[in-house]
Structure formats: structure tokens, C-alpha cells
């Protein structure tokens, strides 16, 4: 009977993506602290402006790469 594979950070090829995702998220946090983040009104355009800020964009790319780290 085949044993289910135990996932390990170092046993597969996920770690470059996980590492880059962690680096991007850390960069986003530092960037947000240094630069600050503006909040806009809760309209559709305001939400677009909320997201279209360098630290938020870097964090979104980090989340995207993290989500793409487990799929072949």
C-alpha cells in the first residue's frame, strides 16, 4: 500500500517560491512602515486607489507567488 507523501519544505521544489513570497511580504511590510499607506473612500475607484500603492502591490504579488508554490 502506498503511503501518503508527507510534505516537507526542503523535500520538494516549493521553497524558492515560498522564500520569494516571504521576502516580498516582508518587503511590503517594511515599505508600508517607511512610506505609509493612504486610505481612500470606499467607492470602487477608492478601492482601486487603495490597492494601487507600491507596498500593497508588492504584498499582492507575494500572495500570488505563495498561492502558486504548491501547484505543478
Amino acid at each position, binding site marked *: 500500500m502506498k503511503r501518503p507523501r508527507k510534505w516537507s519544505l526542503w523535500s*520538494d*521544489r*516549493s521553497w*524558492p*517560491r515560498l522564500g*520569494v513570497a516571504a521576502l516580498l511580504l516582508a518587503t511590503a511590510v517594511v515599505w508600508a512602515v517607511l512610506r505609509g499607506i493612504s486610505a481612500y473612500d470606499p467607492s470602487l475607484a477608492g478601492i482601486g*486607489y487603495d490597492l*494601487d*500603492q*507600491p507596498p500593497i*502591490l*508588492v504584498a*499582492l*504579488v507575494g500572495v*500570488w*507567488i505563495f498561492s*502558486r*508554490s*504548491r*501547484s*505543478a
Partner: protein
Amino acid sequence: MILPQIQIARGHWLLGALFLAIILDEYLPLPGRDGRAGSRSPLIGWALMIGGAGVWATVVFADVVHDMLIHFLWGDLLLAAGALELARRRGVYERPWLDYVLPLAILGCGALFIVHVEIDPEGQGAQWHLAMGLLLLAGGLLELLRLQWPRVAAVPLGLPPLAAFALALIAIPVAAAS
């Protein structure tokens, strides 16, 4: 219609994030695949074409002729590369030379940055444009070299300069965006 400088900067930040997502997904190895290729996702083709449409939109909003021309050519290049990548990733068109499409598109975009600076060396953001052009040229050349040397193919040589380019685009100050 001329866009305010902050909106131009926002467009640059958005395109920078899109480019960062493209190159990381393309060049970072995926679990279960060999290191040479990234995801081979059709999303890359779509993202290139969306980026091309975004750059091309500058032709409508720019008020400087050389900005209009250069952005028009950038848009064309990205749309053509995106269409070819999409066709390959969908499996409807397979040719060995398609491996060169992405590095050549990157190289072409880098060359256009240099042309942009050469046409208007005193323009605002010239230093940023020069740095970004050189980073794209380095990234494109390194990826072309990687295609030629299969032994180092597992290492995405072009990734550091291309990531630096994307981060420079995301970080471009409002005053330097043009």
C-alpha cells in the same frame, strides 16, 4: 486628455507589479517540474497582453510625441509576445524558436527604454528610465545565454535584473513617471 502625474505613476506601479508576477511565475521553478521552465501557465500570455494594452493606452493619454511613439512600440511588442506565448501554452503552435520570444521581447523593451532616454536625455525620470532599460537588457541577454547553455538552464540567470526592473517600476517616484 492628459492624465495627472499621480495617475501616470499609478499606471507604472500597476505594470511593475504585473511584470514582477509574470517573471517570478515564469522563472521560479514549480514543484513537480524541471527547473528549466516555470509554470507554462497561459496566464503569462494573458498578462503580457494586458500589460501591452496598458502601455498602449499611454498613446491616448500622453502629451509628448516621443512618449506616445515609444509606448506604442512597447505595447506592440508585449501584445505580439503575449499572443505567441498564449498560442504556445495552449498547445496550438509549437516551434523551437518560441523559446526565444520572451527573452527577445524583454530585450526589445530594454532597447526602447534606451531610445526613450536618447530622444529626451534631459527629461524628468531619465536616470530611472536608463537604469530600467539597462536592467531589462541585462535580463534579456542573460535569458538568451541561458537558452544557449543548457547546463546552466536550471538557474534563472535573468531573474535578478528583471526583478530589480519590476521593483524599480513599482518604486518609481511620482515626479519621475512619464
